[in-house]
């Protein structure tokens, strides 16, 4: 822990003016300690407790599980498959997401806000619903049945890209729109082709954001569970599905613990690679007010050839294609939700207000519960994630300090890379009278927003951090030279620049919390279910009415998500939301 204490001390060691030094020291200490406490109590402890159960038998350490699990050929196959599907899906998501980020964040056109919100929808749909939306397209006799993709590796990868495309678009786009266009313009003025200017000027500037987004996508893919099972069937298990089977079906905690460690190692390696890629490229960038040029299909009159119009068109074409593909399952979902018997109608939507005799609460009540829970989770994630991003954006002079900062950064990514089953079951082991407090948190329902926040924190960090890191330190120096106390510098430089990316972070965190169904599904929940839980229950019942209601409720969830994401984006535009 000493290294971390040093980190917190480093920024405060800078020359301080007036009596402001002491409160700043306390601030930085809290900025490190509060998030660490949160992560320690609500993530590390449950996970360690669960893994410990697997390795400690009758009070003594038993590591024989490693030899046992590694001698099964199945384990190696699963490790290979996990890495393969995550790598392929991440690569595809990045390759498709970069043009998407350009078109959706750097260019301006009618309907852009709607499409931005639309691409986020897949990210929050419950996997069981995505399973329906996807598989009913691919199944033989379905609209895309002729492709024979049902139960193939391609189907899994397609679904993973479907889920995570938004992560790349938003992560990279948030950075891109703030990039000062003058550097690229200068390169062009000096004779570089549009492609060369992009490759040598813009791409390097975006690399940290791309690496950030790619690492998120990789973690999401490496721990994907429902998607893999539903679309891939038996052949394509992953480490995550195996942990689920070993824990919930066989109660083989030893094997589950070994697999959890393997998963952690893979995730750790991925984070290290991403961290390296970021560190190489990360530097201060000239950030500007969001800039975007209008996008038109026709070459603007009077502009010269080789002005990059072709490149823009290619990006627009690629994005249109991807958005179309994203729409297919979504449209399929809407169409199916409108199907009533042999005809069409809004009956399933009308039924959402009642409990229909098969639910404890109506869909609208569950929607309110979902919104309330997601709001709590978002506030938590914003506080914790914001503090982490602020601390991690510092660049201590000492090498140990820099390592500690990088370690802290990676640490807060782990919740995305560790099995939801391990976390969920770990909560049960650790949250009975935690820290000696006389309360049983396990059945109180409090853990639901917390579990969602733990997952949303890395999203907040990854969204805000690239912007904070790109702030030119000279801005801060200038501010303090002009007499601003450290607290004032933090407020008027860091916070005011980061605040503009907070809208994006809020939208992201909110969306993630709304859709979270991993750890939540293993928590003991009092009978006020969230929307994804309700959808899961509905689709688990026989009868066309339950099915129709489940799909209608999914459409509600999708629309809700899209509206909230769109609203959060509006918060950022100068003028409307102000400098909040």
């Amino acid at each position: 822990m000493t290294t971390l204490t040093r980190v917190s001390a480093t920024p405060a060691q800078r020359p301080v003016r007036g009596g402001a030094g002491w409160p700043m020291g306390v601030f930085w200490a809290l900025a490190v300690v509060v998030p660490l406490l949160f992560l320690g109590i609500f993530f590390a402890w449950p996970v360690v407790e669960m893994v410990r159960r697997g390795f400690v038998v009758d009070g003594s350490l038993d590591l024989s599980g490693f030899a046992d699990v590694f001698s099964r050929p199945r384990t190696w196959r699963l490790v290979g498959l996990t890495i393969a599907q995550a790598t392929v899906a991440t690569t595809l998501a990045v390759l498709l997401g970069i043009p998407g980020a350009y078109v959706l964040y750097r260019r301006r056109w009618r309907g852009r806000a709607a499409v931005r919100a639309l691409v986020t929808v897949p990210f929050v749909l419950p996997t069981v619903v995505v399973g329906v939306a996807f598989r009913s397209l691919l199944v033989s006799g379905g609209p895309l049945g002729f492709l024979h993709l049902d139960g193939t590796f391609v189907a899994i990868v397609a679904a993973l890209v479907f889920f995570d495309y938004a992560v790349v678009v938003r992560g990279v786009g948030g950075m891109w729109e703030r990039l000062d266009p003058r550097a690229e313009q200068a390169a062009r003025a000096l004779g570089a082709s549009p492609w060369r200017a992009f490759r040598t000027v813009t791409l390097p500037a975006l690399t940290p954001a791309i690496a950030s987004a790619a690492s998120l996508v990789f973690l999401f893919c490496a721990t994907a569970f429902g998607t893999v099972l539903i679309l891939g069937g038996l052949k394509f298990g992953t480490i995550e599905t195996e942990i689920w089977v070993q824990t919930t079906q066989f109660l083989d905690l030893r094997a589950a613990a070994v697999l959890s460690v393997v998963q952690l190692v893979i995730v750790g390696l991925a984070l290290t690679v991403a961290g390296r890629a970021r560190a190489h490229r990360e530097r201060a960038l000239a950030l500007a007010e969001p800039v975007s040029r209008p996008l038109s299909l026709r070459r603007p009159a009077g502009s010269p050839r080789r002005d990059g119009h072709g490149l823009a068109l290619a990006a627009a074409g690629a994005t249109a294609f991807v958005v179309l593909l994203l729409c297919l399952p979504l449209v399929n979902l809407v169409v199916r939700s409108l199907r009533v018997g042999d005809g069409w109608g809004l009956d399933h939507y009308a039924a959402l207000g009642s409990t229909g005799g098969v639910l404890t609460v109506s869909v609208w009540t569950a929607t309110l519960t979902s919104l309330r829970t997601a709001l709590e989770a978002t506030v938590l994630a914003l506080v914790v994630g914001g503090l982490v991003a602020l601390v991690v954006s510092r660049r201590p002079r000492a090498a140990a300090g820099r390592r500690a900062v990088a370690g802290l950064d990676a640490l807060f990514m782990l919740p995305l890379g560790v099995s939801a089953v391990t976390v969920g079951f770990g909560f049960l082991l650790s949250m009975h009278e935690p820290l000696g407090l006389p309360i049983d948190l396990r059945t109180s329902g409090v853990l639901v927003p917390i579990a969602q926040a733990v997952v949303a924190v890395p999203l907040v960090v990854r969204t805000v951090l690239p912007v904070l890191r790109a702030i030119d330190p000279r801005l801060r120096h200038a501010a303090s030279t002009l007499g601003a106390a450290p607290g004032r510098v933090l407020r008027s430089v860091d916070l005011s620049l980061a605040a503009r990316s907070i809208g994006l972070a809020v939208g992201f965190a909110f969306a993630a919390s709304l859709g979270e169904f991993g750890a939540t599904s293993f928590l003991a929940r009092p009978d006020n279910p969230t929307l994804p839980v309700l959808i899961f229950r509905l689709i688990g019942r026989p009868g066309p009415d339950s099915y129709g209601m489940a799909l209608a409720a999914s459409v509600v969830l999708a629309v809700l998500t899209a509206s909230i994401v769109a609203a959060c984006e509006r918060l950022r535009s100068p003028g409307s939301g102000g400098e909040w």
Partner: protein
Amino acid sequence: MEDDAHMPIPAAPHHRSLLAATATLAVAALAACSSGGADASPPSATASASVSATASPSQAPGTVTLVTHDSFLLSDGILDDFTAQTGITVKVVQQGDAGALVNQLVLTKDAPLGDATFGIDNTFASRAVDEGVVAPYESAAPAAADSATHPGGPGLTAIDYGDVCINVDHAWFTKHHLAEPVTLDDLTDAKYKNLLVVPNAVTSSPGFAFLLATIGAKGDDWQAYWEALKKNGLKVAEGWSDAYYTDFSGGGADGPRPIVLSYASSPPETIPKGGGDATTGALLDTCFRQTEYAGVLTGAKNPEGAKKLIDFLLSDEVQADIPGSMYMYPVSTAVQIPEDWQKFAPLAPAPFDVAPGDITANREAWLAQWSQTVVG
């Protein structure tokens, strides 16, 4: 991560009191802001108030916590009636499927999640009993004698049961002028090639139940049977919803396959809106019987309340509600079965059976062999 056992208290000693204070505050604040919605349940509050005047002091007071799976449901107001009768408020906590439920109960047996449990089924019963999850209790409710005809082991009280059976889409077979299959062996007939879909036995509890049906039927030859199924174009879907709604043609979503694994109680849900006959039916020679049990959790804070709740689950009121809300048959023979059920959801006369002890002993091995056979 296993080295980080001290993570939860990550500070130097002199910080500890501050940290503990912060943590307490945070936890308390969260508890306060999260419980607001959950506590607002006026009906039960008024019910308990009106009863408290008549309640005798010997009655178990307060709250009883029922730990159950995601499919647990009773019609609106039934648990309030329990509160009205006993003065006890029921708190229901739900998590995962039957398998996850039992395993969570095993993991938390030193500090149980609640007082009573419902939803341990016969495929997990012997694990729950062996691990000492439930405390001994024999209900004296009128339906207890009926319940005892479904023994699950000491401490387990049978509440409901049902058959997991192959379902067929009558409409599809009529349209294609094909006779419907009847037995397990028919499913391997080339006439029915590429027509069957079942949920994964590893990830789905009805899927596992069907594996048990084949083990009960074929004994040691069950793997050969599955090989024949596979050769005949068997499709394995991830879960019940996936199989029933995406692959099955009769579930209302127009999938391609007319034979699916589901429950004997599914067909009544396919009666057309205007009435008439169910468009699907169950093959009663292909079934495995699932029984769901309730029990008092070992170490319960309110064991007396838990016992009362189990008696209540055997009451006519709850037993009569079970078919409509949980798609299972009540154990009580005293209550009326819905008319639709008598017609379209009859029970299998002789379902296949595997002893609970054998299931617990062989679950992992059977599933490994099954995966091997079906995936190849």
